[in-house]
């Protein structure tokens, strides 16, 4: 997503008067064309007979306008659910926006603390692109961010530990029917914003109750940074500018949700989301040769980072989309049936993006989990649940838990990741990225001492009342707007 394409985008957005929401938050300004044209805004836009949009300035010169290209195209699930309003939100969350906030952050009186949270998928993508290790990526990024006067670099694997623990506890509670009828099984994972957006828009009535209320790693980090970390460093939540780097454009939508905006402090949990590929644009913008950057562990501090004490190895979980299925499966098997699951054996379905795993106790299938990535597999899960709820079959539920991700191959292949030209090249690149992602020590989220400390000191334990208030969210059914055009054919 280069800045040029955004200029083009905004100019076409002006043509569509409808559905234009001006964001109210300070971080996101209404989309403007930074490059002022010389016509004082008196140009006209006309549609030529061939359907092209042409801008005619006062002196009569014509300039053909490019069609709006929505950068979510890589991710099918996402392109299907983007309205122009959401596109505005996405465009507003750009490197320009980021840089203008960073650059204006100079005066001492209202100087903000700047926190960047990096996702493990993004560092893997950057490592594959530059052909260096993920550790080198982090060290170079620290040098780069230091030069931008950024104060902290955090790791969303850290907040993901909370997300996994809360999801697992929520699942067990649902399984034991402790949460009542409005939180039934199967529980559907909630970390993918493309999926959430789609579910709210098209299947609100019957699918939302099944979606886990646990916030995504990005939004849990948002909560931690603005309401826990802020207290630790003794500043107001609104005095932190929190930026995340994600494998996914849809995370921009997620960060823009009203649910993640605090009215009292007038601040969002995550102020700006940049995609991995936008980081390349950022390097370009800053004339930075990333590979030449010094490698530093000390340049900026990183309190919340799943890395060992020697700063040599990352801690993580298996599964490059966050490992929800695996962790919830193991946790539930232990908690509900006292079974220790060693290796998880998947049964691959019709395609690689659909897998199942089950647990049998005394010959009875007690846990049946599935992993469904990509739009088509989402469709089939939604269909199965709908058939089940409408027909009220007495037969067993198709699944107890489904890890859903909108992108084929999951988050490692997110729409915001760096892509290579050509199908073959991109596949090879994806494999490399996955390998980089796996440069880590597998650690059970329960064994993260900092997480345990925060649970103890701030949240009163996992899935407690406080944890539910702070680390869970809700979903909203979105009414379909009826089209004004009466389609006749």
């Amino acid at each position: 997503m280069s800045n040029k394409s955004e200029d083009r985008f905004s100019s076409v957005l002006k043509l569509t008067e409808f559905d234009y929401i001006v964001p109210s938050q300070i971080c996101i300004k209404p989309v403007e064309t930074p490059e002022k044209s010389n016509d004082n805004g008196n140009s006209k836009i006309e549609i030529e007979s061939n359907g092209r949009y042409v801008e005619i300035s006062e002196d009569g010169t014509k300039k053909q306008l490019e069609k709006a290209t929505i950068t979510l195209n890589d991710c099918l699930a996402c392109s299907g659910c983007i309205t122009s309003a959401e596109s505005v939100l996405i465009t507003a969350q750009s490197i320009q926006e980021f840089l203008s906030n960073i650059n204006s952050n100079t005066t001492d009186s209202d100087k903000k603390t700047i926190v960047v949270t990096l996702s493990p998928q993004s560092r893997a993508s950057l490592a594959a692109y530059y052909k260096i290790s993920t550790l080198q990526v982090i060290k170079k990024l620290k040098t780069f961010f230091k030069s931008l006067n950024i104060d902290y670099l955090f790791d969303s694997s850290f907040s993901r530990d909370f997300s996994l623990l809360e999801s697992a506890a929520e699942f067990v509670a649902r399984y034991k029917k402790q949460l009542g009828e409005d939180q039934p099984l199967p529980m559907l994972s909630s970390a993918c914003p493309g999926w959430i957006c789609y579910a709210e828009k098209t299947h609100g009535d019957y699918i939302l109750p099944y979606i886990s209320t646990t916030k995504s790693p990005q939004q849990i980090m948002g909560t931690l940074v603005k309401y826990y970390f802020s207290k630790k460093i003794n500043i107001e939540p609104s005095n932190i500018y929190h930026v995340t780097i994600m494998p996914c454009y849809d995370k921009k939508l997620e960060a823009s949700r009203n649910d993640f905006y605090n009215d009292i402090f007038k601040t969002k949990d995550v102020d700006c989301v940049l995609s991995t590929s936008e980081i390349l644009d950022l390097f370009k913008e800053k004339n930075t040769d990333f590979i030449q950057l010094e490698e530093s562990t000390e340049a900026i501090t990183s309190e919340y980072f799943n890395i060992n004490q020697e700063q040599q190895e990352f801690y993580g979980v298996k599964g490059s989309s966050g490992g929800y299925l695996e962790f919830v499966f193991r946790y539930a098997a232990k908690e509900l049936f006292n079974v220790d699951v060693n290796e998880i054996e998947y049964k691959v379905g019709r395609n690689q993006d659909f897998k199942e795993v089950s647990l049998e106790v005394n010959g009875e299938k007690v846990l049946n989990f599935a992993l469904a990535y990509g739009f088509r597999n989402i469709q089939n899960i939604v269909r199965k649940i709908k058939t089940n709820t409408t027909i009220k079959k007495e037969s067993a539920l198709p699944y107890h838990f489904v890890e859903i991700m909108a992108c084929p191959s999951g988050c490692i292949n997110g729409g915001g990741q760096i892509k290579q030209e050509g199908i073959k090249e991109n596949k090879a690149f994806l494999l490399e990225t996955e390998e980089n992602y796996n440069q880590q020590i597998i650690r059970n989220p329960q064994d993260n001492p900092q997480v345990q400390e925060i649970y103890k000191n701030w949240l009163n334990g996992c899935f407690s009342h406080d944890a539910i208030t702070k680390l869970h969210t809700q979903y909203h059914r979105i009414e379909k707007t009826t089209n004004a055009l009466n389609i006749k054919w």
Partner: protein
Amino acid sequence: MTDTNNNSNNGYSLKLISSMKKEAPFDKIWNLAWHPSGDILATCANDKLIQIWTKDDKDNWVLAKSLEAHEKTVRRVAWSPCGRFLAGASFDASTSIWEKTKDQLDFNHVSSLEGHTYEVKSVAWDSSGTLLATCSRDKSIWVWQMEEDNDFECLSINSGHGQDIKCVLWHPQEELLASSSYDDTIKFWKDIDGDWLCMYTLTGHESSIWDISFNKDGSKLVSCGEDKQVFFWKYDKENDKWINIFKIKEENSRPIYSIDWSHLTNKICSGSADDSIVIYEEGTGDNKDQYKVLLKKEGAHDSDVNCTKWNPKHENILASCGDDGTIKIWELIKNN
């Protein structure tokens, strides 16, 4: 009922065998489909109904059933090759699947395919009867596979067309899907390792392509559209591409909405907004890639002719329907 306007062309005439009018006036009939037996017709219309027509004891065509499942216009209907299932594509964004009881004209609504964001414009079964394709104004094509329990699993969601997709149609023999769109192109889709990829894009039409039809062995395709033109395409094996071999312009004064290539007689029929039905014939010998108008039936309907379909069992019989709310059955006759 006989045809009073017995105009003949090239020694051919189109004789009206039967005419059925929908009860409610002004209901546009959008599409019709012959049951593989050739003795049953399914139609769909503005009134949200799918209707089943058949012959009574006295050999008169009568309405047998009205199937109600949709909240908006039903735009297209399609029988599975075995004739057991009927699919209806609707503007309510869903596609309904009906199962016909074995010996009777009773239908059970066995499934509803949801997922398209906007109007479903067309639906088609593949030659094996296990795959179903749907297309929509949302610019996507969905491929579904029928499961044992009459449920459907979505195999693929294809995007590639830049606009509303008007028609999807399977190759008569291969697992190859064709689609035509408001973006003036025809695309072919094929399953490559689990993903349906666009294999060919055919350009040439100057406006929306309303309908397409394959010849019997699938080596040729005919298309028609808003540009009042009929395009003939042929698969060029050597170069692995589809090429335009013939064009017919200026036969119709208004858009051509439907086209159908007979697998019995190799003749082609079309229906137009100029109220006419046109029959085309393929050349012979060295002229195999040339086509001529055999007959034009002006005023075939009182308004736009929306659909024309050859009977799959009985040679030279065709059915048409239109904005005038009537369904007509015709016979193409060679005069002596």
